[in-house]
C-alpha cells in the first residue's frame, strides 16, 4: 500500500499515456481528456506542500531566534496576508485582487520591482567578473573569449558602426558552430530525459517516493 501501489500507479499511468499517443482511439482519447482536465486540479493542492514547508522553516527560525529571525516575519506575514486580502477582505477596505487594492499594490509595486532589481544586480557582477576572471589563459579560453566579444559587438548597434562584419560573423557563429554545440547538448539532454522517464515509469528510479512511511 505504501510503496507498491504508488509504483504501480506510476507504471500504469505512464504506460497508459504512452499508449494513448500511439493509439488515438476514442476510449484512449477520452481517458486523456479526463486526465488533462483533472491533473491541474490535483496539482493545485501541491501548493500546500510549499506553504507548509516555508511556514515550518521560518516558524522554526523565529522560535529558535536564529540569525536574522526577525526577517522571517517578512516571509510569513505576506504569505498568509496575500490570500486573505485578495480573496476574503472586503473590497471597501482595499480588498480584492484588481487595482486599486492592497493585494494589487503588493505584487505590482513591491514584488515586481524587488524581483526585477535583484536580477539586474547580475549586470554589475558580470562586469566585475569580466575584469577579474575572464582570462585568455589557453587557446580554448581565447576562442571562447573571442567568440563572446564578436557576438557581443555583433548584437549591438555600435558593432555595425565598428565594422559590418561584426554582426555577420556574430550571426554566423550563432547559426553554425553554436548550433552544432547546442544540438549535441540537446541530444544528450534528450536521451537523458527519455532514460529518466523510463526509469521512473518502470520503478528503477524511486527517489521521488521520499523516506516517509517506508
Amino acid at each position, binding site marked *: 500500500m505504501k510503496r507498491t501501489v504508488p509504483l504501480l500507479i506510476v507504471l500504469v499511468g505512464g504506460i497508459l499515456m504512452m499508449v494513448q499517443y500511439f493509439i488515438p482511439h476514442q476510449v484512449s482519447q477520452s481517458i486523456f481528456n479526463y486526465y488533462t482536465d483533472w491533473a491541474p486540479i490535483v496539482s493545485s493542492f501541491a501548493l500546500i506542500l510549499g506553504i507548509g514547508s516555508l511556514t515550518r522553516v521560518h516558524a522554526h527560525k523565529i522560535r529558535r531566534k536564529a540569525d536574522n529571525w526577525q526577517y522571517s516575519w517578512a516571509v510569513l506575514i505576506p504569505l498568509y496576508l496575500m490570500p486573505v486580502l485578495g480573496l476574503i477582505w472586503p473590497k471597501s477596505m482595499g480588498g480584492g485582487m484588481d487595482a486599486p487594492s492592497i493585494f494589487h499594490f503588493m505584487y505590482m509595486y513591491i514584488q515586481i520591482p524587488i524581483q526585477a532589481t535583484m536580477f539586474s544586480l547580475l549586470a554589475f557582477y558580470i562586469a566585475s567578473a569580466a575584469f577579474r576572471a575572464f582570462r585568455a589563459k589557453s587557446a580554448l579560453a581565447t576562442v571562447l573569449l573571442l567568440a563572446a566579444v564578436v557576438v557581443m559587438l555583433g548584437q549591438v548597434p555600435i558593432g555595425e558602426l565598428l565594422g559590418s562584419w561584426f554582426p555577420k560573423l556574430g550571426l554566423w557563429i550563432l547559426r553554425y558552430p*553554436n548550433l552544432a554545440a547546442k544540438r549535441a547538448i540537446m541530444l544528450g539532454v534528450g536521451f537523458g530525459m527519455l532514460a529518466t522517464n523510463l526509469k521512473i515509469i518502470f520503478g528503477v528510479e524511486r527517489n521521488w517516493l521520499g523516506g516517509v512511511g517506508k
Partner: protein
Amino acid sequence: MYDVIGIWAGAFFTLAIYSFLYKENPIYRLAEHLVVGISLGYGIAVTYSNVLKPRLIDPVNSGGHWILVIPGLMGFLYITRFFPRISWLSRYPIALLMGTSMGVAFPLTMKAAVLRQLESAIIPLYREGMSWDVVLGSVIMLLGTLAALIYFFFSKPHKGPFFGFGSRIGIWVIMLGFGATFGFTVMGRISLLIGRVQFLLSDWLHLIK
C-alpha cells in the same frame, strides 16, 4: 494617486536593492524576504481563483459535477504529508502526476529533442547558389555536431583518430558555442539593468520618455 504612491514604493525598493552593491544592509534583507512571502501568497490566491474555484468548487456546488470530487480528494491527499503516520498517502497524487507526465512526455520529447534533431543534422552541404559562408557553416554544423557528440561520449577513451581527433574538434566547437552564450549572457544581464534604469528615469523621475 494610487499609481504615484506605487511608483514611489517601487523606486524605494529598487534603490534599496541597489544599496546592496555598496554594502549588505537590513532593507535589502527585508526586501529579499518579502519577495518570497508575497510570491507564494500571490500563488495561493491565484491558484484558488483561477483553478480551484472555477474548476472544482463552482462546478461541484452547482451540482451535476460530483465526479470532480475524485481529483479534489486526490489533491487533498497532499496534506497528509504533514501527518507522519499517514504521510505515505501523499505519494498517491505524486505518483499519479509523475507517471502520467512521464508517459505523456516520452513520445513527444523523443520527437522534439531527438528525432527532429537527428533528421535536421544531415542537410545538403551544397546546393547551387549557396554562398561560401553558408557551405562552410553547413559543413561545420554537421561535423561539429558529430564532434561535440564524440566529446560528450565518455564510454570510450578519447584516443585514436576517431575518438581522439573527434573529441578535440568537439571541444573547439563547444567553446565557440559557449563563447556565444557568454556574449549573450552579458547582453541579457545588461538588459535587465536597462529595464530598472528606465523605470527610475522614466516612470519615477520622468526625466526621459
